[in-house]
């Protein structure tokens, strides 16, 4: 490979640039003729002479460069068994691809499955890995960061890679691309799948294999440096090296990954993101308390107060017991859950609801109970006046409802609904000891 005039000349030297990677962004269009005209005035023996003029011109060459930047702040949670066809809101890896050349150019997009290797700066999971199937790349048409089938425009697949025509891009403006996969079933939480997106400069669906400056794309052959011709538009690969070791290259001629970090002036650029099987960190806990018995009466001094009555109701026949089941999705969980269902069976000695004969208004409930959830004590507020003959459900969103006992087995069978990270729901019901 011939020395790259723009970035280095052999070992030990670095060519300094006036500007950074985006030096040519919004730069003068390739093919523009830049002319400098100069005039000279002078006198001989105090007599002004005719003004002289000279000019010099050159044609601006094509600086070919593309950037790829992963836009995910961390690994992207995804659910085992999830498929994208016909579905909306599918988690995707987000990449911004920008043509920073001084000409409109087509791109080719390659996606490299790197099993579960760590991504620099991410909270990587694993080490177990999985491989997605039916990998696609789509333009995030509605800009919501997730894949919506039928809305977000899939790129045309060409062999193992994809084609992104120049008509879909505005020069120097990032285009958000989504990498979407079908996820195998039966995976474990924390399994990781790492993907690198590679964008290469192309004419139509043909990769630009080399420039006129002695550089070649992976799999291509460098051509001799073009001779001095300021009237000819020459190509110059001006892409920077990919940022991290996992940001590998792609041989679009052989249509296969090149598992080494993308270098400078190879006509392509890459970045990496990763999926991880969601790990909703749910916990469930249950407490029971004797609220009332026919001899000692109430544990609490009054309704809605945690002040004890100095009595100690016992679990004797005719006593009323309160069960509280708490369900928590830990704040560190990386995924919301939905359709939570709580079931609980009653042993034969427990009668559903208040069968004490005591008026419900004379049996006092505390203001709150404390359960240990996800390793920490959590104080749960109880409804002020629950129906002692119903199952009371307080959803993660704070809504309260009363449900009947199932009438079968299990006796308690209620829906708690959705629960986001950090939210807790609870189920409260009462039984009478036979």
């Amino acid at each position, binding site marked *: 490979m011939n020395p790259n005039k723009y970035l280095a000349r052999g070992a030990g030297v670095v060519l300094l640039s006036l500007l950074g990677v985006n030096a040519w962004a919004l730069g003068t269009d390739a093919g523009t003729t830049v002319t400098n005209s100069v005039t000279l005035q002078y006198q001989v023996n105090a007599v002004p*002479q005719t003004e002289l003029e000279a000019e010099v011109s050159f044609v601006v060459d094509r600086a070919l460069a593309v950037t790829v930047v992963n836009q995910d702040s961390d690994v992207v949670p995804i659910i085992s068994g999830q498929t994208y066809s016909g579905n909306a809101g599918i988690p995707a890896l987000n990449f911004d691809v920008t043509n920073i050349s001084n000409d409109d150019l087509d791109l080719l997009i390659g996606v490299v499955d790197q099993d579960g290797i760590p991504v620099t700066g991410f909270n990587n999971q694993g080490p177990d890995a999985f491989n997605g199937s039916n990998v696609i790349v789509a333009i995030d048409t509605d800009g919501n960061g997730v894949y919506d089938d039928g809305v977000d425009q899939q790129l045309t697949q060409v062999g193992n890679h994809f084609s992104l025509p120049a008509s879909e891009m505005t020069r120097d403006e990032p285009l958000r691309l989504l990498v979407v996969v079908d996820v195998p079933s039966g995976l474990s939480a924390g399994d990781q799948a790492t993907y690198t997106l590679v964008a290469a400069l192309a004419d139509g669906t043909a990769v630009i294999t080399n420039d006129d400056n002695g550089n070649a794309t992976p799999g291509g052959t460098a051509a001799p440096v073009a001779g001095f011709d300021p009237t000819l538009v020459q190509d110059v690969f001006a892409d920077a090296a990919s940022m991290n070791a996992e940001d590998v290259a792609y041989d679009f001629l052989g249509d296969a990954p090149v598992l080494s970090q993308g270098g400078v002036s190879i006509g392509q650029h890459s970045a990496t993101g990763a999926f991880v099987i969601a790990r909703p960190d749910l916990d469930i806990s249950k407490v029971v308390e004797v609220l009332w018995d026919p001899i000692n009466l109430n544990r609490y001094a009054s309704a809605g107060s945690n002040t004890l009555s100095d009595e100690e109701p016992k679990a004797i026949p005719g006593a009323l017991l309160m069960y509280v089941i708490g369900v928590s999705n830990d704040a560190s969980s990386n995924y919301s859950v939905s359709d939570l269902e709580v079931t609980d069976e009653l042993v034969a000695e427990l009668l559903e609801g208040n069968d004490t004969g005591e008026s419900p208004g004379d049996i006092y409930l505390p203001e709150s109970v404390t359960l240990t959830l996800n390793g920490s004590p959590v104080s749960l507020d109880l409804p002020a006046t629950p129906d002692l003959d119903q199952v009371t459900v307080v959803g993660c969103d704070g809504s309260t409802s009363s449900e009947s006992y199932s009438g079968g087995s299990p006796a308690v069978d209620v829906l708690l609904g959705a629960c986001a990270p950090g939210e807790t729901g609870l189920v409260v019901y009462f039984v009478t000891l036979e």
Partner: protein
Amino acid sequence: MQRKSSLSFWLTAPLLWLVALPALAQIALESQVQKVEHIEHDDGQVETRLVDADSVVPGDELRYTISFRNEGDEPIDPNSIVITDPLPRATRYIDGTAFGAGARVTYSVDRGQSFADPEALYVESNGTRRQATPEDYTAIRWEFEPGLEPGEASHVSFNVQLR
């Protein structure tokens, strides 16, 4: 790429031999553009090289060199040589690069209608008048104090960045 422009005053009409002869001065003027590369070595030393401007892309630094030579028989008057160079479009002047031995260098911000020292140049920007920066310059002028004897040559130069 360079182009030469020259002018001779060869008088052939016999009648004109009776009047004062214009000087037989002839200046050859050339303009050249090269690319400037700054290369940092391992020891931190930065080397500047001038190479052919055959691969020029936005962001590149260019040097324009204007050379002139008195190819005539008469000396050019002192304080008479003035070179004016409107900066090429799509370029920006790089501060401090204008060179001309024995010349006073002034700049223009109005495409060469007027020239002044940098501290005397002002531009209107968003309705506010402010002192011009090198990015605002649109032309450079060199006014030479020395003359130019027959056979003598000189040059001026300046650097720009391709936008």
